[in-house]
Protein backbone atom coordinates (compact mmCIF):
# COMPACT_ATOMS: atom_id res chain seq x y z
CA UNK A 1 0.00 0.00 0.00
CA UNK A 2 1.77 3.07 -1.23
CA UNK A 3 0.30 6.51 -1.19
CA UNK A 4 1.42 8.69 -4.07
CA UNK A 5 0.31 11.29 -6.55
CA UNK A 6 -2.47 8.99 -7.74
CA UNK A 7 -4.36 10.29 -4.74
CA UNK A 8 -4.29 13.79 -6.19
CA UNK A 9 -5.36 12.50 -9.57
CA UNK A 10 -8.28 10.60 -8.09
CA UNK A 11 -9.28 13.61 -6.02
CA UNK A 12 -9.34 15.63 -9.24
CA UNK A 13 -11.50 12.99 -10.96
CA UNK A 14 -13.77 12.99 -7.93
CA UNK A 15 -14.04 16.78 -8.02
CA UNK A 16 -14.80 16.77 -11.74
CA UNK A 17 -17.55 14.19 -11.30
CA UNK A 18 -19.05 16.06 -8.36
CA UNK A 19 -19.05 19.20 -10.51
CA UNK A 20 -20.73 17.42 -13.43
CA UNK A 21 -23.35 15.91 -11.16
CA UNK A 22 -23.96 19.18 -9.35
CA UNK A 23 -24.24 21.24 -12.48
CA UNK A 24 -25.65 18.98 -15.20
CA UNK A 25 -27.20 15.90 -13.61
CA UNK A 26 -28.96 16.76 -10.39
CA UNK A 27 -30.68 20.11 -11.12
CA UNK A 28 -32.47 19.13 -14.36
CA UNK A 29 -33.52 15.76 -13.02
CA UNK A 30 -34.64 17.22 -9.72
CA UNK A 31 -36.61 19.85 -11.61
CA UNK A 32 -38.15 17.26 -13.92
CA UNK A 33 -39.17 15.14 -10.94
CA UNK A 34 -40.56 18.09 -9.01
CA UNK A 35 -42.49 19.25 -12.09
CA UNK A 36 -43.89 15.79 -12.62
CA UNK A 37 -44.85 15.60 -8.98
CA UNK A 38 -46.71 18.88 -9.36
CA UNK A 39 -48.31 17.67 -12.59
CA UNK A 40 -49.53 14.51 -10.92
CA UNK A 41 -50.74 16.43 -7.87
CA UNK A 42 -52.60 18.86 -10.14
CA UNK A 43 -54.08 15.97 -12.10
CA UNK A 44 -55.27 14.28 -8.95
CA UNK A 45 -56.73 17.53 -7.68
CA UNK A 46 -58.50 18.07 -11.01
CA UNK A 47 -59.85 14.53 -10.86
CA UNK A 48 -61.11 15.14 -7.36
CA UNK A 49 -62.71 18.39 -8.48
CA UNK A 50 -64.31 16.64 -11.45
CA UNK A 51 -65.71 13.98 -9.18
CA UNK A 52 -67.10 16.63 -6.88
CA UNK A 53 -68.63 18.49 -9.81
CA UNK A 54 -70.15 15.27 -11.10
CA UNK A 55 -71.69 14.74 -7.69
CA UNK A 56 -73.08 18.27 -7.72
CA UNK A 57 -74.42 17.83 -11.24
CA UNK A 58 -76.07 14.58 -10.23
CA UNK A 59 -77.69 16.34 -7.32
CA UNK A 60 -78.77 19.19 -9.59
CA UNK A 61 -80.25 16.84 -12.16
CA UNK A 62 -82.12 14.94 -9.45
CA UNK A 63 -83.47 18.25 -8.18
CA UNK A 64 -84.52 19.28 -11.66
CA UNK A 65 -86.21 15.92 -12.20
CA UNK A 66 -88.05 16.21 -8.92
CA UNK A 67 -89.15 19.76 -9.80
CA UNK A 68 -90.33 18.67 -13.22
CA UNK A 69 -92.28 15.80 -11.73
CA UNK A 70 -93.90 18.09 -9.19
CA UNK A 71 -94.76 20.60 -11.88
CA UNK A 72 -96.20 17.89 -14.13
CA UNK A 73 -98.31 16.58 -11.29
CA UNK A 74 -99.49 20.11 -10.61
CA UNK A 75 -100.41 20.63 -14.24
CA UNK A 76 -102.17 17.29 -14.34
CA UNK A 77 -104.17 18.14 -11.24
CA UNK A 78 -105.09 21.55 -12.67
CA UNK A 79 -106.14 19.98 -15.94
CA UNK A 80 -108.24 17.42 -14.14
CA UNK A 81 -109.83 20.09 -12.05
CA UNK A 82 -110.49 22.16 -15.15
CA UNK A 83 -111.99 19.14 -16.89
CA UNK A 84 -114.29 18.46 -13.97
CA UNK A 85 -115.22 22.09 -13.95
CA UNK A 86 -115.91 22.06 -17.68
CA UNK A 87 -118.12 18.98 -17.36
CA UNK A 88 -119.90 20.67 -14.51
CA UNK A 89 -120.39 23.80 -16.55
CA UNK A 90 -121.58 21.78 -19.53
CA UNK A 91 -124.05 19.98 -17.30
CA UNK A 92 -125.40 23.25 -16.00
CA UNK A 93 -125.61 24.69 -19.51
CA UNK A 94 -127.33 21.56 -20.77
CA UNK A 95 -129.81 21.71 -17.94
CA UNK A 96 -130.56 25.34 -18.66
CA UNK A 97 -130.97 24.56 -22.31
CA UNK A 98 -133.16 21.60 -21.57
CA UNK A 99 -135.26 23.67 -19.24
CA UNK A 100 -135.57 26.29 -21.92
CA UNK A 101 -136.58 23.71 -24.49
CA UNK A 102 -139.03 22.16 -22.10
CA UNK A 103 -140.46 25.57 -21.25
CA UNK A 104 -140.75 26.44 -24.92
CA UNK A 105 -142.43 23.12 -25.62
CA UNK A 106 -144.78 23.65 -22.72
CA UNK A 107 -145.57 27.14 -23.91
CA UNK A 108 -146.21 25.85 -27.38
CA UNK A 109 -148.40 23.13 -26.05
CA UNK A 110 -150.30 25.63 -23.98
CA UNK A 111 -150.64 27.86 -26.97
CA UNK A 112 -151.85 25.00 -29.12
CA UNK A 113 -154.29 23.97 -26.44
CA UNK A 114 -155.51 27.52 -26.28
CA UNK A 115 -155.77 27.62 -30.05
CA UNK A 116 -157.55 24.32 -30.18
CA UNK A 117 -159.86 25.50 -27.45
CA UNK A 118 -160.57 28.72 -29.35
CA UNK A 119 -161.17 26.74 -32.49
CA UNK A 120 -163.33 24.37 -30.62
CA UNK A 121 -165.21 27.25 -29.14
CA UNK A 122 -165.82 28.64 -32.64
CA UNK A 123 -166.89 25.24 -33.85
CA UNK A 124 -169.18 24.75 -30.86
CA UNK A 125 -170.72 28.17 -31.48
CA UNK A 126 -171.19 27.28 -35.14
CA UNK A 127 -172.57 23.95 -34.09
CA UNK A 128 -174.83 25.64 -31.63
CA UNK A 129 -175.95 28.08 -34.27
CA UNK A 130 -176.45 25.26 -36.77
CA UNK A 131 -178.32 23.33 -34.09
CA UNK A 132 -180.40 26.31 -33.27
CA UNK A 133 -181.03 26.82 -36.97
CA UNK A 134 -182.15 23.32 -37.23
CA UNK A 135 -184.29 23.69 -34.17
CA UNK A 136 -185.83 26.94 -35.20
CA UNK A 137 -186.11 25.77 -38.78
CA UNK A 138 -185.65 29.14 -39.91
CA UNK A 139 -183.05 31.37 -41.05
CA UNK A 140 -181.36 33.10 -38.22
CA UNK A 141 -180.10 36.43 -39.11
CA UNK A 142 -176.44 36.04 -38.26
CA UNK A 143 -176.00 39.68 -38.25
CA UNK A 144 -178.97 40.31 -36.02
CA UNK A 145 -177.85 37.71 -33.60
CA UNK A 146 -174.12 38.28 -33.78
CA UNK A 147 -174.10 40.10 -30.52
CA UNK A 148 -175.77 37.23 -28.83
CA UNK A 149 -173.46 34.70 -30.44
CA UNK A 150 -170.35 36.55 -29.31
CA UNK A 151 -171.79 36.63 -25.84
CA UNK A 152 -172.34 32.91 -26.10
CA UNK A 153 -168.83 32.35 -27.30
CA UNK A 154 -167.50 34.20 -24.36
CA UNK A 155 -169.49 32.06 -22.05
CA UNK A 156 -168.10 28.82 -23.41
Amino acid at each position, binding site marked *: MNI*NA*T*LIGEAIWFGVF*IWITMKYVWPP*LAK*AMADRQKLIADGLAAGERGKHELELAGKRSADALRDAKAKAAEILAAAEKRGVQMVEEAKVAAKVEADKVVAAAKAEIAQQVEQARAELRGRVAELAVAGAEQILKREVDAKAHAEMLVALKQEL
Partner: protein
Amino acid sequence: MASGEPLTASGYIVHHLTNLTVGHGFWTLHLDSLIISGLLGLFAFLGMAKLASKATSGVPGKMQAFVEMLISFIDQQVKDTYHGKSPLVTPLAITIFVWVLLMNTMDLIPVDFVPMLLGAAGVHYFKVVPTTDPNLTFGMSLTVFTIMIVMGFKVKGFGGFMHEVFTVPFGAKMAPVNLLFRLIEDIAKPISLSLRLFGNMYAGEMVFILIALLGLWQLPLALPWALFHILIITLQAFVFMMLTIVYLSMASESHG
Protein backbone atom coordinates in the same frame (compact mmCIF):
# COMPACT_ATOMS: atom_id res chain seq x y z
CA MET B 1 1.28 -13.58 -16.59
CA ALA B 2 4.35 -11.56 -17.33
CA SER B 3 7.11 -13.45 -19.01
CA GLY B 4 10.22 -14.23 -17.03
CA GLU B 5 8.43 -14.44 -13.66
CA PRO B 6 8.33 -17.72 -11.78
CA LEU B 7 4.88 -19.27 -11.93
CA THR B 8 4.26 -19.51 -8.20
CA ALA B 9 1.15 -18.83 -6.17
CA SER B 10 2.63 -15.81 -4.46
CA GLY B 11 3.99 -14.55 -7.75
CA TYR B 12 0.52 -14.84 -9.26
CA ILE B 13 -1.06 -12.96 -6.37
CA VAL B 14 1.56 -10.22 -6.33
CA HIS B 15 1.21 -9.87 -10.07
CA HIS B 16 -2.52 -9.34 -9.77
CA LEU B 17 -2.09 -6.80 -7.02
CA THR B 18 0.54 -4.67 -8.74
CA ASN B 19 -0.52 -1.43 -10.31
CA LEU B 20 0.43 -0.17 -13.71
CA THR B 21 2.60 2.78 -12.79
CA VAL B 22 4.51 5.66 -14.30
CA GLY B 23 6.88 7.99 -12.45
CA HIS B 24 9.00 7.55 -9.36
CA GLY B 25 8.64 8.18 -5.65
CA PHE B 26 5.69 10.30 -4.65
CA TRP B 27 5.03 11.31 -8.23
CA THR B 28 4.18 7.78 -9.17
CA LEU B 29 0.83 7.55 -10.93
CA HIS B 30 -1.25 4.40 -10.94
CA LEU B 31 -2.42 4.56 -14.52
CA ASP B 32 -4.83 1.64 -14.16
CA SER B 33 -6.74 3.23 -11.28
CA LEU B 34 -6.80 6.63 -12.93
CA ILE B 35 -7.90 5.33 -16.33
CA ILE B 36 -10.54 2.89 -15.12
CA SER B 37 -12.02 5.22 -12.53
CA GLY B 38 -11.95 8.09 -15.01
CA LEU B 39 -13.59 6.11 -17.80
CA LEU B 40 -16.27 4.74 -15.50
CA GLY B 41 -16.96 8.18 -14.07
CA LEU B 42 -17.06 9.86 -17.46
CA PHE B 43 -19.34 7.13 -18.78
CA ALA B 44 -21.71 7.38 -15.84
CA PHE B 45 -21.81 11.10 -15.25
CA LEU B 46 -21.64 12.35 -18.83
CA GLY B 47 -24.28 9.75 -19.64
CA MET B 48 -26.50 10.97 -16.83
CA ALA B 49 -25.83 14.60 -17.81
CA LYS B 50 -26.89 13.85 -21.39
CA LEU B 51 -29.99 12.12 -20.13
CA ALA B 52 -30.72 14.94 -17.70
CA SER B 53 -30.46 17.53 -20.47
CA LYS B 54 -33.28 15.72 -22.26
CA ALA B 55 -35.22 14.96 -19.09
CA THR B 56 -38.92 15.46 -19.42
CA SER B 57 -41.39 16.16 -16.68
CA GLY B 58 -43.95 14.19 -18.66
CA VAL B 59 -43.85 10.43 -19.02
CA PRO B 60 -40.20 9.42 -18.55
CA GLY B 61 -38.43 6.92 -20.74
CA LYS B 62 -37.11 3.68 -19.28
CA MET B 63 -33.58 5.01 -18.84
CA GLN B 64 -34.78 8.25 -17.28
CA ALA B 65 -37.10 6.34 -14.98
CA PHE B 66 -34.18 4.17 -13.88
CA VAL B 67 -31.86 7.11 -13.21
CA GLU B 68 -34.65 9.02 -11.47
CA MET B 69 -35.38 6.04 -9.28
CA LEU B 70 -31.72 5.84 -8.31
CA ILE B 71 -31.22 9.49 -7.57
CA SER B 72 -34.54 9.94 -5.80
CA PHE B 73 -33.57 7.00 -3.59
CA ILE B 74 -30.28 8.78 -2.81
CA ASP B 75 -32.07 12.09 -2.36
CA GLN B 76 -34.40 10.42 0.13
CA GLN B 77 -31.42 9.20 2.13
CA VAL B 78 -30.00 12.72 2.11
CA LYS B 79 -33.31 14.25 3.16
CA ASP B 80 -33.70 11.78 6.00
CA THR B 81 -30.26 12.49 7.40
CA TYR B 82 -29.09 15.92 6.32
CA HIS B 83 -31.26 18.86 7.33
CA GLY B 84 -29.03 21.71 6.12
CA LYS B 85 -29.52 23.74 3.01
CA SER B 86 -26.36 23.09 1.03
CA PRO B 87 -27.13 22.24 -2.61
CA LEU B 88 -23.91 20.23 -2.71
CA VAL B 89 -24.89 17.29 -0.54
CA THR B 90 -27.30 15.44 -2.82
CA PRO B 91 -25.05 15.70 -5.93
CA LEU B 92 -22.11 14.64 -3.79
CA ALA B 93 -24.02 11.62 -2.51
CA ILE B 94 -25.12 10.71 -6.04
CA THR B 95 -21.54 10.99 -7.29
CA ILE B 96 -20.18 8.82 -4.50
CA PHE B 97 -22.80 6.10 -4.77
CA VAL B 98 -22.79 5.79 -8.54
CA TRP B 99 -19.04 6.05 -8.96
CA VAL B 100 -18.09 3.71 -6.13
CA LEU B 101 -20.75 1.22 -7.19
CA LEU B 102 -19.41 1.12 -10.75
CA MET B 103 -15.78 0.84 -9.64
CA ASN B 104 -16.65 -1.92 -7.19
CA THR B 105 -18.54 -3.74 -9.92
CA MET B 106 -15.26 -4.10 -11.80
CA ASP B 107 -14.53 -6.73 -9.17
CA LEU B 108 -17.04 -9.03 -10.86
CA ILE B 109 -14.92 -9.23 -14.01
CA PRO B 110 -13.01 -12.52 -13.76
CA VAL B 111 -9.62 -11.76 -12.24
CA ASP B 112 -7.58 -13.05 -15.14
CA PHE B 113 -9.69 -11.57 -17.91
CA VAL B 114 -8.33 -8.05 -18.16
CA PRO B 115 -4.69 -8.88 -17.25
CA MET B 116 -4.64 -11.56 -19.95
CA LEU B 117 -6.10 -9.28 -22.59
CA LEU B 118 -3.75 -6.44 -21.74
CA GLY B 119 -0.87 -8.85 -21.22
CA ALA B 120 -1.33 -9.91 -24.81
CA ALA B 121 -1.13 -6.22 -25.72
CA GLY B 122 2.12 -5.83 -23.80
CA VAL B 123 0.81 -4.28 -20.58
CA HIS B 124 2.07 -6.50 -17.80
CA TYR B 125 0.39 -5.11 -14.73
CA PHE B 126 -3.20 -3.99 -14.50
CA LYS B 127 -5.44 -3.77 -11.46
CA VAL B 128 -8.91 -3.40 -12.81
CA VAL B 129 -10.72 -2.51 -9.56
CA PRO B 130 -9.87 1.12 -8.71
CA THR B 131 -11.37 0.87 -5.23
CA THR B 132 -8.71 -1.65 -4.26
CA ASP B 133 -6.26 1.23 -4.62
CA PRO B 134 -5.99 3.17 -1.33
CA ASN B 135 -4.99 6.24 -3.33
CA LEU B 136 -8.48 6.40 -4.75
CA THR B 137 -10.29 5.77 -1.49
CA PHE B 138 -8.11 8.32 0.30
CA GLY B 139 -8.53 10.77 -2.54
CA MET B 140 -12.28 10.51 -2.11
CA SER B 141 -12.34 10.54 1.66
CA LEU B 142 -9.97 13.53 1.89
CA THR B 143 -12.12 15.43 -0.58
CA VAL B 144 -15.15 14.61 1.57
CA PHE B 145 -13.14 15.66 4.62
CA THR B 146 -12.27 19.01 3.04
CA ILE B 147 -15.90 19.62 2.08
CA MET B 148 -16.89 18.71 5.63
CA ILE B 149 -14.46 21.21 7.20
CA VAL B 150 -15.40 23.97 4.77
CA MET B 151 -19.09 23.32 5.41
CA GLY B 152 -18.47 23.44 9.17
CA PHE B 153 -16.84 26.85 8.85
CA LYS B 154 -19.52 28.11 6.49
CA VAL B 155 -22.47 27.03 8.58
CA LYS B 156 -21.12 27.83 12.05
CA GLY B 157 -18.70 30.62 11.23
CA PHE B 158 -15.12 30.64 12.46
CA GLY B 159 -16.13 31.49 16.05
CA GLY B 160 -18.84 28.86 16.21
CA PHE B 161 -16.59 26.21 14.74
CA MET B 162 -13.78 26.96 17.19
CA HIS B 163 -16.25 27.11 20.06
CA GLU B 164 -17.46 23.66 19.15
CA VAL B 165 -13.92 22.32 18.81
CA PHE B 166 -12.92 23.51 22.27
CA THR B 167 -16.11 23.02 24.29
CA VAL B 168 -17.66 19.82 23.02
CA PRO B 169 -18.19 17.39 24.71
CA PHE B 170 -16.81 18.34 28.15
CA GLY B 171 -17.28 22.10 28.34
CA ALA B 172 -14.82 25.01 28.24
CA LYS B 173 -12.84 23.91 31.32
CA MET B 174 -11.54 20.84 29.53
CA ALA B 175 -10.63 22.65 26.32
CA PRO B 176 -7.39 20.73 25.58
CA VAL B 177 -9.11 17.39 26.04
CA ASN B 178 -11.96 18.53 23.85
CA LEU B 179 -9.50 19.60 21.16
CA LEU B 180 -7.73 16.25 21.36
CA PHE B 181 -11.01 14.39 21.11
CA ARG B 182 -12.07 16.51 18.19
CA LEU B 183 -8.78 15.94 16.39
CA ILE B 184 -8.99 12.21 16.84
CA GLU B 185 -12.61 12.17 15.77
CA ASP B 186 -11.98 14.22 12.66
CA ILE B 187 -8.85 12.34 11.65
CA ALA B 188 -10.61 9.05 12.17
CA LYS B 189 -13.40 10.04 9.79
CA PRO B 190 -11.51 10.10 6.47
CA ILE B 191 -9.30 7.21 7.49
CA SER B 192 -12.16 4.94 8.45
CA LEU B 193 -14.13 6.03 5.40
CA SER B 194 -11.35 5.18 2.96
CA LEU B 195 -9.92 2.13 4.69
CA ARG B 196 -13.34 0.53 5.02
CA LEU B 197 -13.95 0.69 1.30
CA PHE B 198 -10.37 -0.21 0.44
CA GLY B 199 -10.26 -3.11 2.90
CA ASN B 200 -13.53 -4.62 1.77
CA MET B 201 -12.73 -4.43 -1.90
CA TYR B 202 -9.13 -5.50 -1.49
CA ALA B 203 -10.15 -8.50 0.55
CA GLY B 204 -12.87 -9.38 -1.94
CA GLU B 205 -10.42 -9.17 -4.80
CA MET B 206 -7.96 -11.26 -2.84
CA VAL B 207 -10.54 -13.97 -2.31
CA PHE B 208 -11.26 -13.96 -6.04
CA ILE B 209 -7.54 -14.35 -6.76
CA LEU B 210 -7.21 -17.18 -4.23
CA ILE B 211 -10.23 -18.89 -5.74
CA ALA B 212 -8.65 -18.49 -9.17
CA LEU B 213 -5.61 -20.38 -7.86
CA LEU B 214 -7.68 -23.48 -7.16
CA GLY B 215 -7.66 -24.73 -10.71
CA LEU B 216 -10.88 -26.54 -11.59
CA TRP B 217 -12.32 -25.93 -8.11
CA GLN B 218 -12.63 -22.25 -8.90
CA LEU B 219 -15.65 -23.00 -11.07
CA PRO B 220 -18.06 -23.93 -8.25
CA LEU B 221 -16.52 -21.39 -5.88
CA ALA B 222 -16.18 -18.23 -7.96
CA LEU B 223 -19.89 -17.95 -8.67
CA PRO B 224 -21.15 -18.05 -5.05
CA TRP B 225 -18.44 -15.61 -4.02
CA ALA B 226 -19.35 -13.31 -6.91
CA LEU B 227 -23.01 -13.46 -5.93
CA PHE B 228 -22.14 -12.72 -2.34
CA HIS B 229 -19.77 -10.01 -3.48
CA ILE B 230 -22.60 -8.19 -5.25
CA LEU B 231 -23.94 -7.54 -1.78
CA ILE B 232 -20.61 -6.14 -0.59
CA ILE B 233 -20.23 -4.02 -3.72
CA THR B 234 -23.59 -2.34 -3.18
CA LEU B 235 -23.26 -2.18 0.56
CA GLN B 236 -19.85 -0.50 0.49
CA ALA B 237 -21.01 2.07 -2.03
CA PHE B 238 -24.06 2.75 0.12
CA VAL B 239 -22.01 2.94 3.34
CA PHE B 240 -19.51 5.38 1.85
CA MET B 241 -22.38 7.57 0.65
CA MET B 242 -24.32 7.31 3.89
CA LEU B 243 -21.33 8.11 6.12
CA THR B 244 -20.50 11.09 3.95
CA ILE B 245 -24.04 12.39 4.42
CA VAL B 246 -23.82 11.78 8.16
CA TYR B 247 -20.47 13.58 8.43
CA LEU B 248 -21.79 16.53 6.47
CA SER B 249 -24.94 16.71 8.55
CA MET B 250 -22.77 16.63 11.68
CA ALA B 251 -20.66 19.42 10.23
CA SER B 252 -23.70 21.58 9.59
CA GLU B 253 -25.54 20.92 12.84
CA SER B 254 -24.64 22.09 16.28
CA HIS B 255 -23.40 19.41 18.65
CA GLY B 256 -24.86 21.04 21.68
